[in-house]
């Protein structure tokens, strides 16, 4: 579906690298953009950038996703932006797997941010879009949710749960108008992955992933890999017998 007029988009976790690259694509379309996050000064600097790049209007929302009332926040954004066509959930916490194994609070934080809170926002967004009878929910998942690995399985478990939730919302929406998509990026070169050895064919730029997120808001789904080659890679990884998988270190 293409929009006759520029879309109105609400981005949850607007300061993330993928979110900012996606927002710039919307700005180039002269979209109306809502930026939600926890750091108002940073959101303001992003808003100025998007306005300079062509956005029709940009509003910022100071929201702590873990504690906020999602339904009320969505209603507020809807009023402020004059309607919302696309909701993009882009926040996440990679966390430290090692720490999560010895420190229950650290594990809880990873699960709270990436699943408990994200699920609450998705359910609120589902009701919001269902009531409108149109619009798209695009959620950033991860290939880490496709098979548990010792290096990041707490994060992966949260993203796996989120993927099933979004898939379910997509099923609920079938034939009703709205859409829901989970986008699963592979490793992406953003601040979230600072400190990892980057480069090589498996790493993607945030701009590459953003183009896929933007497209997912218009069509396709409900499960989209970013870049697309990760669908094949993860199909293979999921089918590796554990006798072999256990000997692999990644």
């Amino acid at each position, binding site marked *: 579906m293409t929009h006759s007029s520029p879309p109105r988009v609400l981005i949850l976790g607007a*300061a993330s690298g993928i979110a900012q690259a996606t927002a710039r694509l919307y700005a180039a379309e002269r979209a109306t953009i809502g930026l939600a996050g926890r750091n108002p000064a*940073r959101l303001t*600097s992003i808003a100025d*950038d998007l306005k300079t*790049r062509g956005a029709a209007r940009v509003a910022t929302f100071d929201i702590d996703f873990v504690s906020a009332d999602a339904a009320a926040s969505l209603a507020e954004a809807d009023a402020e932006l004059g309607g919302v066509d696309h909701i993009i959930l882009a926040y996440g916490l990679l966390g430290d797997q090692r720490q999560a194994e010895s420190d229950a609070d650290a594990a809880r934080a990873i699960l709270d941010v990436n699943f408990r809170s994200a699920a609450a926002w998705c359910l609120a967004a589902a009701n919001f879009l269902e009531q409108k009878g149109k619009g798209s929910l695009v959620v950033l998942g991860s290939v880490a949710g496709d098979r548990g690995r010792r290096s990041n399985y707490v994060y992966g478990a949260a993203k796996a749960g989120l993927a099933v939730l979004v898939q379910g919302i997509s099923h609920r929406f079938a034939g009703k108008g709205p859409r829901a998509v989970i986008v699963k990026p592979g490793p992406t070169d953003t*601040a979230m992955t*600072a400190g990892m050895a980057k480069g090589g064919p498996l790493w993607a730029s945030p701009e590459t992933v953003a183009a896929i997120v933007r497209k997912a808001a218009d069509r396709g789904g409900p499960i989209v890999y970013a870049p697309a080659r990760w669908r094949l890679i993860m199909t293979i990884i999921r089918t590796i017998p554990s006798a072999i998988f256990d000997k692999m270190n990644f």
Partner: protein
Amino acid sequence: MSSFLPTSAALSWGRTPRVSQSIARPSFADELRPLIADARRIPGGLLATGLRRSYGDSCLNDGGAVIDMSGLDRLISFDRVTGRLVAEAGASLADILKVAIPAGFLLPVTPGTKFVTLGGAIANDVHGKNHHRAGTLGRWIRRLSLIRSDGAEHELSDDDASGLFAATIGGLGLTGIIARAELQLQPIASSMMEVETIPFGNLSEFFRLAEESDATHDYTVAWVDCLSSGGALGRGVFSRAWHSREGSREVDDKRALAVPIDAPGFLLNRFSLSAFNAFYYRLAGRRRHATVSYNPFFYPLDAIGGWNRLYGRQGFYQYQSVVPPAVAEAATMEMLKTIAAAGQGSFLAVLKTFGDVPSPGLLSFPMKGTTLALDFANRGPRTLALLDRLDAIVREAGGRLYPAKDGRLPPEMFRAGYPGLSEFVKHRDPGLSSSFSRRVGL
């Protein structure tokens, strides 16, 4: 919050030095001050870098700390009436063009690639094909904000009396970290260019064409076949242009090719280069006129992503000199003879006359005269010996070399070429350094 992480084998565009440095890549401007403070624990000093399109070691800091500014690429404001644009220092010229062109503006001055940051363009006070009219980019910077290594932030305007603004323009990042800047863009009626190409048979013809064209055209540049000798020495193609007076204003982002791997070095031997150059000369053929988009006119090599890898793993040197007008023809002739005799030419030999528009920076490279720029594949001592011979010609002529292109110029030659140096050192930030600054004792 980003932090410094050690990396090995960091490269500049010329891919000759490989250095170990600790790099931080902030995503937000509020991370700059904490990073600058944190860098004090790293003994080798600190340098801010952009997209690392400098060819030699001015964008490297071996053993030190580097803040990669490319994540601070936000456009802050753009007045579509006056053409004033404010951006973070990590914004690329490509980003700026995307918003400028639809609004009817273009960069007032642009180097041969749009994949450089605004901060890097200021720190090297870059020039372009319109130097004889517009001068350097530094002349179009209205304000900038600079964070010194002691944490003090300075808002500097182009009428700054302290001298810090002038030191920062072309200051190679050694006066402080440029956080953001305001740039005056130039209005255009169309993003198309009217380009005339005129073959010339020798160097005297180039100088005649340059003098004539600088009076009539906004943009002038020449390509020179530096491998031909004898009567054909200095033959080439002159290109002159102005903006189309009508037509569309469209962002042109086409990138046709990419070089995914390092080419084997033997691809660039004397014979392949000679054939390439002869082909280029014939391709240009007779004098002709064309209307082309700004993109292929200003940025022909941007169409080939990673063209620097064509020189293979050994990398290459770029050599760019400027010599004063009185001796320009003789000195350029001698340089071309020396290069032809050595048989180590390059894809690109670019010749241009600089005008007398003064450069605002204390260490700006451009001065009135003739500039010659070429690439040399790195063949070790043989290449360095040739560059030493070229140095002697440039020094004798009273000329200088461009630090952004350099990876080996001797300290004495740097000092001799830049009379503004004694004034510059008063504004030098002692907490900042680069491999270049250490090498030339700056």
